[in-house]
């Protein structure tokens, strides 16, 4: 025991000394998340620099998920829908002291358009400066454009941030925090930008550390080493529950775990079978046990966070194994001697591909396997990596995929839906399925209509997907954050565009 006291005293002394050395500085805010920093190119790890408020975009979203101004104060579109004008905020300075100009913004958007970010998917024909405005010309009307300009890959950087070949060589943004050091892939440190256009942030210095293991992240919050910890697993919350120094906040995010079906395969082409598969799933049970929150059971594809898309009047997806068996029998699938369904000599044996980047997916896959066995379906589960779903979608060999889909790649879900439910289906969406009415609604939404009609079309999309089940929704998602009680003013953005560090302050 003597030895422990002796060691403790030494560590305490060293701790005091190193603390004294830093004592003159104000407390650094320590933020921890699982996301590693792959580089400074906005299309790569830009989300970290957006969330940490180093770089900013023309638009952003407010707490309700509605589009809001950031570097652009207002925007308007020509009558034909082909020309968008974004008016820039006045008096904005980059971290190198240079002023934000329409020229500079146009250059950043050109960079985003030529790269691999979301803007490359929009049919933009030209990006030009015009006085204090930036003009984007389109090939055909696209009403979701302003939402695309909230995406991190469209960050506005200073002209000096690019090298001769147009690559990003330094991260010089306009945000309330300025990058002071970067140790890829794990750490970055920031200091307050005294000349930011918004209210002066209360906290002067910030550090972000990428910690891959959820257990470690939870322990960092519990030990007070981190003040703000993002993305905790439900299993990690136990360590924090009785900790008086830490509180946790949970928000539902626009992300849904779903089953992707190859509707072209003879197993899933019959709508009755797809409905039966959905009815055979006990979503509340799975959400309650595996995600520790029954309310995450998906009653439809879009979670309530996606207002305008989530339709409260839509009949919820139900759990009714009896009805499932009846529908399967009606479709010609009858139990064989082994208890597995057969039709025309074919056994209902299918395989499901999933991956472990989201730790809950393999567990959910096992539960689905057991529940479908109850109605006579023999499901094999293969856990690989995420790209297998995409490549097997392409070569047509995929039967079922279990995945987690983000509907706020751009804050308007239309961006994701156009990728997932187009005429050819989508890598992460429909496979061997398309629907003319849905297509018409998506086209209508892209071209733009008045608000009332828009909502009707959005809910029409939700209705068709619920009716046709090209993908079977399982569970919605939530973002769990642990925050030190020393911090006030936390805003957790369900769209994860920003951590709103500039609004945080140390509690008195």
């Amino acid at each position, binding site marked *: 025991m003597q030895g422990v006291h002796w060691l403790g005293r030494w560590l305490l002394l060293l701790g005091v000394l190193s603390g004294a050395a830093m004592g003159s500085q104000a407390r650094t805010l320590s933020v921890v998340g699982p996301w590693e920093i792959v*580089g400074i190119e906005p299309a790569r790890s830009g989300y970290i620099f957006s969330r940490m408020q180093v770089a900013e975009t023309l638009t952003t979203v407010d707490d309700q998920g509605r589009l809001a101004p950031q570097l652009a104060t207002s925007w308007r579109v020509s009558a034909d829908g082909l020309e968008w004008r974004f008016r820039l905020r006045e008096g904005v300075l980059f971290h190198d002291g240079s002023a934000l100009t329409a020229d500079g913004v146009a250059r950043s958007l050109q960079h985003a358009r030529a790269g691999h970010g979301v803007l490359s998917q929009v049919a933009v024909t030209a990006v030009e400066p015009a006085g204090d405005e930036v003009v984007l010309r389109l090939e055909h009307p696209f009403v979701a454009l302003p939402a695309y300009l909230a995406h991190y890959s469209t960050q506005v950087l200073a002209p000096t941030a690019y090298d001769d070949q147009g690559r990003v060589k330094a991260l010089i943004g306009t945000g309330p925090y300025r990058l002071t050091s970067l140790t890829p892939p794990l*750490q970055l440190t920031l200091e307050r930008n005294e000349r930011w256009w918004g209210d002066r942030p209360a906290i002067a210095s910030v550090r972000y550390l990428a910690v891959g293991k959820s257990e470690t992240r939870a322990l960092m919050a519990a030990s007070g*080493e981190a003040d703000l910890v993002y993305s905790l697993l439900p299993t990690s919350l136990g360590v924090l529950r009785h900790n008086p120094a830490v509180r946790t906040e949970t928000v539902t995010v626009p992300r849904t775990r779903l089953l992707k079906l190859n509707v072209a395969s003879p197993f899933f082409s019959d709508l009755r079978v797809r409905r039966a598969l959905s009815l055979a799933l006990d979503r509340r049970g799975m959400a309650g046990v595996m995600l520790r929150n029954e309310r995450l059971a998906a009653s439809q594809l879009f979670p309530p966070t996606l207002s305008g898309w989530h339709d409260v009047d839509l009949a919820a997806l139900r759990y009714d194994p009896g009805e499932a068996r009846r529908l399967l029998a009606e479709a010609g699938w009858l139990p064989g001697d082994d208890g597995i369904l057969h039709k025309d000599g074919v056994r209902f044996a299918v395989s499901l591909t999933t991956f472990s980047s989201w730790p809950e997916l393999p567990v959910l896959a096992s539960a689905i396997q057991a529940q479908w066995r109850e109605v006579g379906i023999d499901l094999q589960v293969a856990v690989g990596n995420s790209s297998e779903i*995409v490549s097997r979608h392409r070569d047509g060999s995929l039967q079922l995929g279990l995945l987690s889909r983000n509907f706020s*790649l751009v804050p308007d879900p239309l961006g994701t839906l156009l990728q997932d439910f187009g005429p050819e289906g989508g890598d992460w969406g429909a496979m061997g399925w398309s629907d003319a009415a849905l297509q018409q609604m998506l086209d209508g939404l892209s071209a733009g209509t008045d608000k009332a009609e828009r909502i009707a079309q959005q809910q029409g999309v939700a209705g068709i997907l619920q009716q046709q089940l090209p993908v079977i929704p399982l569970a919605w998602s939530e973002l769990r954050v642990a925050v030190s009680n020393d911090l006030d003013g936390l805003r957790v953005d369900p769209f994860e565009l920003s951590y709103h560090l500039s609004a945080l302050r140390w509690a008195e």
Partner: protein
Amino acid sequence: MMSRLVTARLLQALVAALLIATLCFAMMQTLPGDAAMRIAASRYGPDAMSQQLAEAVRLELGLERPLLTQYAASLMQLARLDLGYSLVSGAPVIEELKVQLGHSLWLALLALALSLLFGPTLGLLAGIRPGGWVDRLSLGLSILLRALPPFVLGLLLIMVFSLWLGWLPPAGFGSWRHLLLPALTLALGLAALSSRVTRDAMAEVAAAPYFAYGRQKGLDGLALAGRHGARNAAIPVVAYLGLQSVYLIEGVVVVESLFAFPGIGHALVHAIIARDVPMVQGTVLIMGLLFIFINLLVDTLCRRLDPRLNAWQEVRR
């Protein structure tokens, strides 16, 4: 004598470099899944990954070229002592390795130092009286520590030192305080074995005639162990250090991920997941060369400790 040893090891290093480059390339090709897709997913995040993006990456990196062409290109690059660029971050591999190797070396050195502090000390004490309570206690302890995977041991240490005692930060890097827990995790695993090796060596020495002679000469315990025991017992322990570097390199991979420490092991895991062939080749090459260097050091040290090794070679010649 010495120069022969160094030349042999240099030659070994050259062959190893060639083998490592070839094996890494071959093994990365046999991994399931499309490399362009894995790289795209690591670069742009799995959510943004699509076939379209994967094709762009494939073209950009020339992954559609025949395998032999790609292999030859990677060997030519190595021949120019150029490790190339990371396929994911786009930064030169050598720049990334400089940072990561620096962090890992500090971690490995501290772990080794701590393990030498615990292991051989406990081993010496246990070996002087084989079967005594110190011996039995240290045996139990080393079985327990060795049976715990580094991941679990690390979490236990975080619980004790960060959560309960609040002395050390649970993860991160940048100061000596961050280094202690990962180093301790590795050191305990290392010490568990080196204490047993030391104990056996010491027990053997303690039973040797020259030790008995020393005792009869009238030397007391400490002087006896110091003059006749330590150096003789050190030979197998030092030789064993070379082997332990394997455990160290393996342990670094797990421990760095757990403690969010930006070292070479952490980099290797991520490079393999991302199919970042130049990064994998670079990290494995550095690890391999390090291993050869450590063995050279151990060989040299053993010859210093035991002049008979040189004498025998002279006789054989």
